[in-house]
């Protein structure tokens, strides 16, 4: 691409949403520029990056995960809600986006997740149905490589098989099978975007165990968005600009986007023009960028005639419980859990109690190093024996629950606090409602019954409600421009050449992980963009 050439598409954000769209459009001949605020860790550097993290963690006696921000002044944020929301613990800015630090769970939403209002009179309905998205779920599973078995009786119908078989149950998870069956709770395998066999030039999982502990798969058996950035680059139709933070989206007098202003790591500002713009910067930064992009045409922020940009911010909430058990459970031999139950994701009384996803934890209890650190002064072979006797005797169960969309939960701008580029920090206003608290309590009851059934003594509960780093809402989709930000094809209602991709467009959050739905929506939108703009 020459310097003066105006590319067809500018994609802001290189996470799974932006990467898949960029790849699909570039593969069809579009000229694409990807702007990514974070840095690029190349595939060959991943193993040395992992070793560096592991060594630094030993030196610092800490457990710092990969992909933590190396540019804190850029990523400053504030809170205004009743809940302290630690945004930077739940996101990362890097090529590949949040799929660099995700757990890899790639599960579909169910049919009922799209129709909460129609079915129960709560939340809102999506402008699309499961059947509209189902073909794209299949394509998404194929593109990112999902391993799974069709053994979940609580999932919705599927028209295509999983590309790879599921991971077998861990010893821990198998241990829970019998007691759960006695309680009438059905466990099943977990679909993961992680290879169980060599596929698409990526090896099968070698059980490094670092995917959940350090949030990095050094061999890329687990999918991350940079894989599709690289596939996009391989088309020779794509330019990747990393360390490029977009500060403003610029519009012309007709209200169309003409360019974006971005800053490099040194703060030098540049302009990127394009014909069509795709905003895929995650639920917080996408909303923030739209709110910052005011103009005479859009005094309340770009694409914000509805006043709903930033509103209806959602998460998944969680709780867990654990306790000592006499049996040895052999934890920490892989990095992830292998059994879940979606039995409670769609309760009959969903208007009172939300959906709950149960997962058995394959990695519960203290690691040998923690047992050694906290031991009461045992030395010699006694210390090894002490660790052996105490390791692996903790059972833990996790409950993830849905949060309903609430206009009082939102992402706004904090004009008093500026980031490294002088732009207002995002301000998170997060509150937890009675519906969610009731659902958490129900989740506690379910996991308590499971732990009691496997023989846990003295159950210990997580003291506070946790968040699952699943940012959703803020640019919700809908058919009514007064009640939503984007239409069913993810085009901004107010702007002809702006599309918003990612979980920001979710109307409701469902109960399970959002990433596969993000991917399916992106593939669907990319098809629409190609048809409409590239004809």
């Amino acid at each position, binding site marked *: 691409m020459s310097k003066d050439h105006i590319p067809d598409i500018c994609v802001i954000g290189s996470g799974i949403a932006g990467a898949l769209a960029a790849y699909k459009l570039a593969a069809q001949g579009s000229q694409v520029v990807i702007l990514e605020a974070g840095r690029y860790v190349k595939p060959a550097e991943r193993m040395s990056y992992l070793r560096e993290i592991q060594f630094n963690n030993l030196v610092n006696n800490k457990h710092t995960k990969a992909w933590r921000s190396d540019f804190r002044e850029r990523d400053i944020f504030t809170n205004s809600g009743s809940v302290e929301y630690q945004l930077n613990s739940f996101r990362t800015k890097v090529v590949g986006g949040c799929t660099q630090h995700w757990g890899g769970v790639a599960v579909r939403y169910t049919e009922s997740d799209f129709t909460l209002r129609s079915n129960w009179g709560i939340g809102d309905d999506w402008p699309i149905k499961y059947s509209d998205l189902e073909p794209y779920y299949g394509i998404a599973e194929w593109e990112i490589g999902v391993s799974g078995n069709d053994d979940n009786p609580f999932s919705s119908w599927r028209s295509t098989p999983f590309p790879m078989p599921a991971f077998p149950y861990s010893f821990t998870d198998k241990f829970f099978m019998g007691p759960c069956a006695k309680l009438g709770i059905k466990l099943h395998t977990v679909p993961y975007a992680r290879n169980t066999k060599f596929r698409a030039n990526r090896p099968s999982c070698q059980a490094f165990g670092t995917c959940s502990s350090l949030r990095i798969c050094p061999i890329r058996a687990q999918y991350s968005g940079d894989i599709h950035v690289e596939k996009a680059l391989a088309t020779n139709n794509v330019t990747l600009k990393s360390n490029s933070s977009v500060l403003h989206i610029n519009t012309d007098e007709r209200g169309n986007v003409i360019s974006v202003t971005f800053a490099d790591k040194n703060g030098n500002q540049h302009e990127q023009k394009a014909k069509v713009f795709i905003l895929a910067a995650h639920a917080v930064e996408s909303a923030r960028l739209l709110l910052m992009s005011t103009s005479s045409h859009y005094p309340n922020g770009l694409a914000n005639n509805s006043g709903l940009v930033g509103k209806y911010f959602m998460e998944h909430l969680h709780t867990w419980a654990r306790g000592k058990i006499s049996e040895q459970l052999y934890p920490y*031999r892989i990095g992830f859990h292998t059994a879940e139950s979606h039995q409670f994701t769609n309760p009959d009384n969903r208007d009172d109690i939300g959906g709950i996803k149960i997962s058995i934890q394959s990695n519960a209890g203290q690691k040998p190093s923690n047992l050694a650190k906290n031991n009461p002064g045992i030395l010699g072979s006694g210390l090894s024996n002490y660790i052996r006797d105490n390791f692996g005797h903790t059972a833990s169960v996790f409950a993830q629950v849905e949060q309903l969309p609430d206009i009082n939960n939102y992402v706004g701008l904090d004009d008093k606090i500026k980031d490294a580029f002088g732009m207002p920090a995002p301000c998170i206003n997060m509150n937890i409602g009675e519906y969610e608290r009731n659902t958490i309590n129900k989740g506690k009851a379910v996991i308590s019954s499971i732990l009691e059934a496997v023989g846990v003594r003295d159950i210990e509960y997580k003291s506070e409600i946790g968040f699952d780093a699943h940012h959703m809402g803020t640019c919700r989709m809908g058919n009514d421009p007064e009640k939503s930000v984007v239409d069913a094809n993810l085009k901004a209602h107010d702007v002809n050449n702006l599309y918003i991709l990612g979980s920001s467009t979710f109307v409701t959050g469902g109960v399970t992980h959002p990433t596969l739905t993000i991917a399916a929506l992106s593939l669907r939108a990319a098809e629409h963009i190609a048809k409409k703009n590239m004809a």
Partner: protein
Amino acid sequence: MKRRRFLYLSAGSAATLGGLAVAKFIDVRGPLLRLPLTMGALNKQDTRTLSSLCEILLPDIDNQSVQFVETVIKAQCLQRPGYLQGLLLSSNLLNGYSAKHNNQLFISLSLDNKINIVKDILWDRKLFLGSTRLNHAYEKLLISKARRIFYKYAYRNLATIVYDIPIGWKRSVNYNQSPGYPAPDPFGYENSINIG
């Protein structure tokens, strides 16, 4: 019997209340050590003295793992304020106790004698089970600063490192990686394994 039980209960209650009062009086937030924050290289002899603690923490630890632990503690001295001084004082304490009890350098002692030296320096950290505040008060009042420095910078630090590297996992829980399962059979995690 009733009278004796009453006396025991009274004495126990008085000791607990007294301990709480002392803890409140001295406003203990934790045993502060206040070491110089200078960073720098740890010399070879002190490094060896400290790494010889590895065999106390994990008997029969191999040389390669000990060398790796040395690399980590050298990096701590270069990167973490307080660690150079903390580890130097710990090395001196080990050699001081060794000279006093065995008239030798710590590194020259047999494993049993090394264990005895470290046992002498350490104390029962669970004296007041369940009360961090009482433990801290007790430690600050009754345990010398040098011994507290040794606990934090040498004993606890090295125990964490030794049991976080592959040899620590292998010897304590019989897994081959830290964490993880050997690559030749990555799905072998579904079976039980002989621990110990």
